[in-house]
């Protein structure tokens, strides 16, 4: 099949970017979207031009490295990661726009590559259980009800790709933060730090320049791992409870 991809090219954070059209011919519907970029890059290199910079690594939908806005949607038309999106989701001859994640919290580095380290700093602010190595009790000492473990797992599947931020009209990192807070607050191991965790993580989120949450739901619609909307309500509940308790 044949496609025209219009790709955001930007040489560096301080320069201006623009969409540049590239026709790509003879691609297969079984290719992943990133393989389309591979093919294009090989052509660009052969023509003596600079290939398109984009983040990617596992190409199995789990590392969270890849992420671009395709035709206005984070990760494109299917609810998955860009590496697991295949060209069979597009029609022959289609013009496809490809842009980087756009959010104040994610400065552009080059072309489609953005800096998502703000998400790491949110986790560093408290998204963990303080469990030093070597002193843990036997794993069966604390049973965890299966429904709690399952729901914790559903939230723990977040891959930190940043699609939720890119999809949000406010550029908010609420769904990401909510996933982590919900995962840890459901487990008995996470309890002592529960209140402090949510307050610190929400503070860190605000400090990084992410916008506020207005319950638009675009984040949930674009999340490749299906983190539920209910996690945001859970985050809000945790936050109110901790604020009332005056944990600091």
């Amino acid at each position, binding site marked *: 099949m044949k496609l025209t991809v219009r790709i955001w090219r930007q040489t560096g954070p301080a320069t201006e970017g623009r969409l540049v059209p590239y026709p790509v011919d003879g691609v297969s519907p079984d290719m992943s979207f990133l393989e389309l970029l591979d093919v294009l890059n090989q052509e660009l290199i052969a023509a003596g031009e600079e290939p398109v910079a984009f983040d990617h690594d596992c190409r199995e939908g789990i590392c969270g490295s890849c992420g671009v806005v395709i035709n206005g949607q984070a990760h494109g038309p299917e609810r998955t990661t860009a590496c697991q999106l295949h060209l069979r989701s597009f029609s022959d001859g289609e013009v496809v726009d490809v842009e980087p994640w756009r959010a104040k919290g994610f400065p552009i580095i080059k072309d489609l590559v953005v800096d998502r380290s703000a998400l790491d700093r949110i986790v560093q602010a408290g998204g963990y259980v303080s469990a030093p*190595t070597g002193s843990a009790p036997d*794993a069966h000492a604390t049973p965890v009800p299966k429904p709690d473990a399952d729901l914790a797992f559903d939230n723990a599947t977040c891959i930190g790709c940043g699609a939720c931020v890119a999809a949000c009209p406010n550029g908010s990192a609420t769904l990401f933060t909510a996933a982590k807070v919900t995962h840890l607050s459901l487990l008995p191991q996470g309890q002592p730090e529960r209140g402090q965790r949510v307050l610190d993580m929400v503070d860190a989120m605000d400090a990084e320049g992410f916008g506020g949450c207005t319950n638009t739901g675009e984040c949930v619609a674009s999340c490749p791992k299906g983190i539920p909307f209910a996690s945001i309500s859970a985050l809000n509940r945790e936050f109110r409870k901790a604020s009332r308790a005056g944990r600091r």
Partner: protein
Amino acid sequence: MADYLTGDPIADTKAPAVPLEKRWDERKFAAKLVNPANRRKHRVIVVGTGLAGGSAGATLAEQGYHVVQFCFQDSPRRAHSVAAQGGINAAKNYRNDGDSVYRLFHDTVKGGDFRSRESNVYRLAQVSAQIIDQAVAQGVPFAREYGGLLDTRSFGGVQVQRTFYARGQTGQQLLIGAYQALSRQIDAGNVELHARTEMLDLVVVDGRARGIVARDLVTGKIETHLADAVVLATGGYGNVFYLSTNAKGSNATAIWRAHKRGAYFANPCFTQIHPTCIPRSGEHQSKLTLMSESLRNDGRIWVPKEKGDTRPPAEIPEDERDYYLERLYPSFGNLVPRDIASRAAKNVCDAGFGVGPGGLGVYLDFADAITRLGRPAIEARYGNLFDMYQRITAEDPYAVPMRIYPAIHYTMGGLWVDYDLQSTIPGLFVIGEANFSDHGANRLGASALMQGLADGYFVLPATVNDYLGSTRLDDVLPEAVTPVETEVRERIERLLAIKGTRSVDSFHRELGVLMWDHCGMSRTREGLRKALDRVPELRAEFWRDVRIPGRGAELNQELEKANRVADFLELAELLLVDALAREESCGGHFREEHQTPDGEAERDDENFAYVAAWEYGEKPVLHREELVFDHVHPTQRSYT
């Protein structure tokens, strides 16, 4: 003309000469300690943030060391351990099915086809139970039963249920646990993290590892980072084959450059082929995706009994199907170890029974399991894997059987280390997949996650303590550093100046095909020779004709790849030499010249019960480490 020279034998001198069960306790007790107040004066570099590197960084920092940690990804959470699906073994015996530390040890030594060290494997089995405790304490949401207790399942090569799992995302969950522990230490100021930074060389001063030269992948800046010890946790080198289940960025550069600085490289030819990969769909394929081996618990593997049968699987009646694993290996059936299952798939496909495009595939069928357990149970166990399969192939595995084919997955070779996980360069420690120590010639399922975390959480923190507590280290003078940095700079300038006609990928793909054809699932003297002729030519072409657009002082992904492929082109040759020298079949190394009359691998314990530790030189120098089996007596590995 010989391909290599033979040097003095090498031996592990760190495992204490006490009974197997007491070795690790004895080693820990004899190890020197560092006073907690003195620990913060020591800097330790950790390269890599996967299960091994992340857990090591977090634990060393907890102990009070100043850890300087590196990863080439934009975040430590993206290390490729994140992609491991199936599970992690531990000798908890929660099932009361006869499991024990000794049985886990026994299974692992046997599974490794008697090419691993008993001491190391026993320790691995010992600390396995603690790993589960540690992960649970961190909030890793393992699968649980309704009573609230942890669920387990079984894996290839094993007859007990000792594998703990978190749906099909066990690696992700364990990695996030280690990443969170690391994040906590970053926030506390004990870990200084350099993301998007790649190690390009090792700084050795007075024979000791004292730092690394690294490139900031965003600015292109080359910088030296000094420390009192260096830990490499950079994963495997399976991408030498281009198509593999590894992440695209996984590479051998850190271990290869350390090898060139004096660290011996052990058993490079032991590469594991994983039996359950999604077959490639065409020339464009950039990598392969694995389907967890745990699927073999409930999936039945078959091919049509008739050659070239192109009927859809549903139209092939039961008695016209060959469930070849169940037929050939009745007691293990579909759960035979990976090397056996892979080779069996290759054999039926080579004989013309394969299914799917090009006949390179076999069916992995869940119809029986869905009838027996119901679709919801299968969804609960493997839902995300089924979704992934459907996404990639556009086929519904609940309705039609999956198609699978073997692919390069894990490398059991790596830098040689002693019981302390220290390489032949003092102060250079190597952990996880980057070392060679625990898996022998083959790796059982669910044992890589176990090794990564055992090394990082439990082994390394004790042995690094001993090294720092017993070694006097002087300050590093700038004269020692400048030449290494200059070499790294010059190499990059040289790469950029070639301005040839062929892309980095075109060289990598050609190398990959060559390696898969001649050094893949089965190898012959003739094929290995052919590849050994071609690889040096290809390397020369690379340095003459590669084209790398852009500059060095910026984000330049082609330059990153070129640096890595240049190293793969060198490592490939050592891999071939090692495969040629090993005149036996063993685990993931199948030499067609050495097989039993019924086509199984034929080991030669008399001549090859050794670790091949290669020293870098004009010609590689082989140092043999004799393997002694006092507890698990080497036998023909039988799974029938």
